[in-house]
Each structure stands twice: as C-alpha cells, then as structure tokens.
C-alpha cells in the first residue's frame, strides 16, 4: 500500500526526532562548546603529553578485552550449540545472568573479590599459600578480569546467535567425507562461524572503547581510558571546554568505528537478519586440518569432549562466582569484609532500611527507571513499526542512528546531557534523568521489538485487515497482543538499563535525585563496605524479580503461552 510506506516514514520520523532532541542535540551542543575561544581546547588537547598515549591505551585495552572475551566465549557458545536442550538452556542462562544484573553490582563484586583484603586474598592467606596479600586490583589485572567478565555475555550471545545459522549438516557431510571431528571443526565449523566472530568482536571492541566504571574502580594508574580522561577534566579541573573538545574528538573516533561496523557487518543481525557468509578461509586451507603426524595430538585434544566441558564449566563458574560471594558477604555480621563469613546476620539489610539516604535513592531509582522504560517502550515500538515499512538504505541508516546510544561511549553523552540540563535549569531533576536514560534503553527496545516484529507472519495483520479491522484495530487486537512477550522483555531491559545506569547518573543526579548506582559509586570509590553488598543484593533481587514477573506473565496469560509455544 502506498499509505503504508508514508505511515512508516512518519513513525520513523517521530522516533528519530525524539532521539535527535534528547541525544543528538545535547552532543551537538558539546561541539559548539568545544570551539569556544577559537579552539583553544583542541590546541591544548593535542599539545597535552598524555592525550595520545591514553587514546592508544584505550584501544589496546579494548583489543585485549575483545581477545580474552573471544577466547573464553567461543568454547561456551560451541558447547551451548551442541548441548542437549536442557543443558543449552542452563549454559545460556548462566551466560546471561551477569547481563541481567547491574554493571555496578558486577564491578563491585570484583572489588570485593580482588581487593587487598578481598575474598581471594583472605582465602589464600587463611590457607597459608601466601603471607602478604597479592595485588589483584587497582592494576591492569583487576581491570581486565572485571572488564572481560562484563563483556563475556555479549560475546557468547552474539557468537551463539551466529553459530545457530550454520547448517550443521555441513559438519555431518564433512564427517562422511572422511574428516575427523576436529578436522570438520577446523575446516568447516570455525570458518562458517567467521561472520559471527567478526561481528561479536567488533561489537565488544566498540563498547569496550567507552569503558569507564570498571577501569576507574579496578584499574591502576596506567589503566586510564579516554572516558576517564574526560571525566577528570570535569571532576578535577571543571574545564568544560576541554572536556567538550575531548568528547568530540572521541566521538569522531567512535563514530568512525561504528561506521566500519555498519559497513562491514551491517546492523541487520540485530534485528533478526542473517549474517553474510563471505570469502574463503585460510583456516580451511591450512595444513592444520591435514593429517599431519605432528599435529595429531593437537587434534586429539580438540576432540576431547571432557576438555571442552571442563573449560566451559570453569568459565560458567567464574561467571557465577561474584554473586555467590556477594550474597554471602551481605549476610555477614562483621564490620569489615570477612571471608569466609563467620557469623551471619541481617544487620546490613536492616541498616539499609533504616538509612534515609538509601531509601530515597531507591525511590529515585524506581521512579526514574519506570518513566524511562515507559518512554523507551513507546518510542521503541513507534520506531520498530516504522522500520518495518521503511526498507533499503534509509531504513538501514535510521537503524544505525537509533542504535547509536547503546554503542557510543556514555561518557560523551553524560557530559552533553549534563550541560544541556544545566542550561535548561533541569539539573538535579528526575525528569531530566529519566529522559536521558530513555535514550539509552531505546536501542535495546528497538532490537527486541524489531526482531519480534520480523518473526511475525505479515499475513496475520493482512488477515486482520481483510477481515474488517482498520489499521488501529489490527495493531490493537493482533500486533500488540502477539508482541506482548517481546514488549514485556523490552520493558524489563529498558527498566534495568536505567536502574543500573552509573555514568549519566553521576553527572545528572544531584543531592535530591541520587539513584542507587550513584550512591554505590560514592561508596565504591572509597573502601569496600558490607552495607553496599546488601545494596548490591537488593539491586540484583529487584532486577531478577522484574524478570521473573515478566516471565510469569508470558507463561501464565493463556494466549501468550500458546503463542510462545507456537514459536
């Protein structure tokens, strides 16, 4: 229908307008600011001795995070792919558990584990393996461990999604043609998973570029990232022009990376599209897959199911360990971090409830997250419906814009939003924080809803129309009910994105609107406090309860269960 396309353009226009207003304009404002005094800030920046090394360091850091995530994530994705349905569910669930919990909770957990008086050091000392505590945090090791931990779920999920597109009959074919298991793996499976590897690595790399919280809390003096440099300009020097110039410079680099991604891999995979299979593979042609006596032991190791399972088991244990530790520590009666816990008590939870500061922060977090997720959901649905009608290069470009807030460094946006809010007299306002958070949740909502819409048989809506339902009635009676599970998970993720958000909150929330992550950050920059462990558990529980409610809603509403079963 001709009208259909126009409506699609309108819907897309509305959602992009929203994003321009709340995301693009504040950042553009930075560009203006950075040019003040004839570009003094840029001249100073390039003259500054530290600026280029920090940029290089940021890239190296991201590359390392990407490498280790791939090495740990690839076996997990492979085993999940070949496991029985039950084990696959377990593996994927454990891989995603970190994703469902606050970034700050995760980082905080590593602080508790790796600190000088942390769980690992205390344990090793009590066993008598070491005399004085090891330096596990406040250095590159700590920054790397916690950063890889944070990126691993994304790596596993992206790899797994790509591997699922591989026709497993090709592996069987290779076996019937005389290849050993390991040879089929190296010559067929790994090359076919290449698009997934490239896409997952680029994704992890781009997101790692903007890392701030983890290296700031767990890294040492040499682990400064570009986002930290920008934050420093504001926190210590209050030099907004310099911070703006650095932000714009960093933005340029990030956008370039984003365009590389959009150009090579494309964003279609985020919305249910297939990855393109391209080129031949050096691996398939390499002597590695031939029957060389020298390499036979290597191939045999690759074929050891036990070894694979062991590696994956250890990775999964690693993924779970912080939670196990945090829950225990929060129930400790000791005034300081003590592991193993000797006396149990609920005193820290009682203290939380008693402290006005935490109660106020909890309320702020809930209100802000509720508004932000509602907004993100509404705009996200608008965008997803629009994206469905508008195809081709226009649609692809719109998708890049709509997903950008999830991929570009949040430090840049934080500063932009902070300055914009200050200009409008909205500093320390829940509304401003909620609006800013909604843009960060929007990409996830769009990814979920667009994928769900794409898997919807277009004939269902056509059928509704032919049976007499107008555009609105067909949306209300057919599309939205069928999207309900997706809408619920999108709402939960948008909620969590806001509930969990640190960087923007650091800048936008003042005394009155302090959120939980904001308060946690304050304590975390000082010493590990058992009360914060209790907060971490509460945050974890809140997100898990929200997820559980969503899951129950999908299971218990009869029509939705049918539909979930039909998928």
């Amino acid at each position: 229908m001709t009208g259909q396309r126009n409506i699609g353009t309108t819907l897309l226009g509305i959602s992009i307008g929203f994003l321009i207003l709340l995301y693009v304009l504040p950042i553009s404002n930075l560009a203006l600011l950075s040019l003040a005094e004839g570009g003094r800030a840029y001249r100073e920046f390039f003259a500054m001795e530290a600026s280029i090394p920090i940029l290089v360091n940021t890239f190296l850091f991201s590359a390392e995070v990407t490498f280790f995530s791939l090495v740990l994530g690839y076996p997990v994705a492979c085993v999940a792919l070949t496991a029985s349905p039950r084990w696959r569910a377990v593996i994927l669930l454990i891989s995603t558990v970190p994703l469902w919990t606050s970034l700050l909770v995760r980082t905080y957990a590593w602080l508790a584990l790796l600190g000088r008086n942390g769980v690992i050091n205390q344990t090793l000392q009590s066993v008598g393996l070491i005399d004085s505590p090891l330096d596990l945090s406040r250095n590159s090791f700590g920054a790397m461990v916690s950063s890889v931990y944070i990126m691993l779920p994304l790596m596993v999920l992206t790899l797994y999604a790509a591997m699922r597109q591989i026709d497993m009959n090709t592996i069987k074919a290779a076996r019937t043609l005389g290849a050993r298991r390991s040879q089929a793996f190296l010559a067929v499976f790994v090359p076919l998973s290449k698009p997934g590897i490239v896409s997952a690595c680029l994704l992890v790399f781009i997101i790692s570029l903007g890392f701030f919280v983890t290296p700031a809390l767990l890294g040492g003096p040499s682990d400064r990232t570009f986002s930290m440099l920008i934050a420093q300009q504001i926190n210590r020097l209050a030099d907004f022009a310099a911070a703006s110039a650095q932000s714009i410079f960093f933005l340029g680099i990030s956008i370039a990376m984003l365009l590389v991604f959009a150009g090579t891999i494309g964003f279609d995979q985020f919305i249910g599209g297939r990855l393109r299979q391209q080129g031949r593979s050096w691996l398939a042609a390499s002597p590695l897959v031939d029957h060389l006596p020298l390499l036979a032991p290597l191939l045999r190791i690759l074929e050891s199911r036990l070894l694979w399972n062991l590696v994956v088991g250890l990775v999964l244990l690693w993924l779970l360990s912080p939670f196990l530790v945090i829950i225990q520590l929060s129930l400790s009666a000791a005034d300081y971090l003590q592991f193993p816990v000797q006396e149990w008590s609920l005193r820290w939870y009682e203290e939380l409830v008693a402290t006005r500061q935490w109660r106020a922060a909890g309320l702020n977090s809930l209100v802000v997250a509720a508004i932000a997720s509602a907004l993100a959901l509404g705009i996200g649905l608008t965008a997803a419906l629009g994206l469905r009608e508008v195809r081709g290069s226009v649609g692809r470009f719109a998708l890049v814009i709509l997903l950008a807030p999830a991929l570009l460094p949040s430090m840049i946006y934080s500063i932009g939003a902070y300055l914009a809010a200050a200009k409008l007299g909205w500093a320390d306002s829940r509304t401003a924080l909620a609006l800013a958070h909604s843009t960060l949740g929007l990409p996830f909502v769009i990814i979920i809803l667009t994928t769900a819409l794409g898997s919807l048989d277009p004939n269902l809506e056509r059928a509704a129309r032919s049976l007499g339902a107008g555009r609105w009635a067909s949306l209300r009676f057919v599309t939205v009910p069928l999207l309900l599970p997706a809408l619920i998970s999108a709402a939960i993720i948008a909620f969590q994105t806001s509930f969990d958000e640190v960087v923007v909150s650091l800048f936008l929330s003042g005394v009155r609107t302090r959120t939980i992550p904001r308060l946690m950050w304050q304590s975390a920059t000082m010493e590990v406090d058992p009360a914060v462990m209790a907060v971490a558990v509460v945050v974890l529980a809140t997100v898990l309860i929200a997820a559980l409610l969503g899951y129950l809603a999908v299971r218990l509403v009869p029509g939705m269960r049918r539909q979930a079963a039909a998928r």
Partner: protein
Amino acid sequence: MKPQSAPRQDAARPASSAAPAAGLELLGVTKRYEPLAPPVVDDLSLAVKPGEFTALLGPSGSGKTTALMMVAGFVAATSGDIRIGGHSIAGLPPESRNIGVVFQNYALFPHMTVRENIAFPLRMHRIPKARRQAMVERALDLVGLGGFGARFPSQLSGGQQQRVALARAIVFEPPLLLMDEPLGALDKQLREQMQYEIRRLHKELKSTVLYVTHDQREALTMADNVALMRSGRLEQVASPADIYANPASRFVASFIGDCNLLNVGAFVRSGDRWRVTIGDYAGDCGGPGPAEGAAALAVRPSHLVLGPAGGAGLQGRIKDVVFAGESFDCQVALEDGQTVWVRRAATPLEGAPAPGSGVTVSWMWEAARLV
C-alpha cells in the same frame, strides 16, 4: 490515495442473509515496483462473473499473488482499475473492501481460540454480539469443525487449521472470496480432500472465488475458469476442458498437463486449420500457430499411440519405460533425433512395452495443436 467510489458503509457491512455474490473485474491492472523495471503485473484484464470460481494459475514469479494482493488492497496498482459488483475499489483500505481472504499458511491468530478467530471479522464489522455466536457456529459446522471452537490454532492439524481459515473468511459473508495457495502446506492426500471441500463450499455458498495456485491439476479440477499468467501477463482464460484441449500458446500447452512439443518440418495454413508435416507423417490440425520463430506440434502423451514398427507415423525405438500405476510412460527415441513420451494405459492383459523394440508413433491429428 482517496476512496474514489463505492459507499464504504455498505461495503463494510454484511447483509443479514447471505450476501449476493459480486462479480470481480480487473481492468488493465499494472503493477510496477520500480519505474524502469519490467512490471510485475502487466495490463491484466480479467472478469470473474458472480458466483464463478476462477483459478489464477501460473509459475512462481508470474505475478499472480501480486494480482491477488492488489484485489485485497495490500498492494496499490500502478495503473488500471479493480471493480467489485461494478464499483471501483481503488483506494479503499483492505478493511473496507469486504473481501474474504484465505492466506498462504492460513494466518490464523495464534493468541485467539478458533471461535475468537472466526468471530474476529464479526467483531470488526460490528455485528451485534447476540448474532455472532450463531454465525460462528454455523461457519464451524459448514467446514465440519463443530466442537473445535475452544481450541487454539496450535492444537489443530494442518487440515483443521485450513478449515478454520476458510470459516473465518466466509463467516462475514463477503461477496468475494480470495484464496492464495491455500492448500500449499498440506500433503497430497489432504490436499485432494480439501480441494473437494472447497468445491463443495463454493457450490453451497454460491460465492465468487478467485483462487491463486501454481498447481495446474488443482486449477483444472477445482475451477470453472482457469486464467493462466506468465511474467505478469495473462496467457489464456478458458474453462479447464478448453484450456487443456486448445492451448493458446506453446507456454500454455507445456504448463497445463503433460505435453510433447515436436519440431515441425513444414506447415501451411489450409482454411482455419494447419497442414503439418513431420518427416513423412502429415495431417491437419488446429491451434494458434507459432507466435514467433519455429513452430511446434503439441501432443499429449496420452494421445500418442504406439504401433508395430513400419506403420504409418514416425519410426522410433523405445528407450525407457516408467511404470506409474495406472499407466506406462514410454520414452521413445524417434529416428529424426527427437524424443517423445507416450502414455499407455496399464491393463492386466498387456505387459510393459520392451525397451529397445522398434515402434511406430502416431496420433489422431484432431488432438494435436500447432503452437
């Protein structure tokens, strides 16, 4: 686009008794997705009389589904007009066209029960609640699914889902019914059963039906009229018997039924017939004649006769024999290098022709067509 004509209210409201079937006319309908690309549907003119069952047949990519979607209102025609009951429906949104559509893969709403699915159009057309239930039950009975109303589509077999889709499309008594490859997802036996069911429903409801299919057998067995499309254009519209016996082009001859296309040595017009010579075998036959280039003689395998070598006809040797149940299909290599298929009824009295034996292939010239 704005509605050009057709009173929207009237079109959208089913009459209390069975709505009279309305005729469908496509007048020079063309669909071009890109200005320079060849049209997907090219100047299609087709009339379906009230109460008639017309099959829109064609290979995949021939534009038949696009044509159907233009009638249903999901694709706008680039030019041309579509009329139902004499009124143009150009510009009317799908929900105001009052056309029942049975979709490929049924498009049943998975979140509604069978009853809710069938009641949906009644709800949308604001039929009073009191009347809805009776109409739903009647539709369910009509398709033989009484008692299945409380189930969800996912609890039904493919054939049952097909029936629900039918019931949902007819319950609001639309004057026109469109079906888009409705039996494509069913296995052969069920498909034949449903062909019969749809035929029966059509006779019972006396509705006008446009039925899109790529299966020529389905078109021949079900339809009053077959409209064959190729690359967006209409090749021929005729009754099943007529289109089978008198194909208007070589494409029609080869698409409908099995057909041998024999290279012709010489042909001349003699009156309203053709004088055709192949080797030293000659005769008079009908047919449209060649559209362009070389002519071919179209003869159905079942119209070819095998005789002992040296008789009147074309000489050849049996290359292969395929047993197909009720018949033997014999592949015969002719002396001039061509190959033909001859279908011979398999009777208990006669054995299979022996491969390698010499034969004479002949036919009744009345059954052959020059295309």
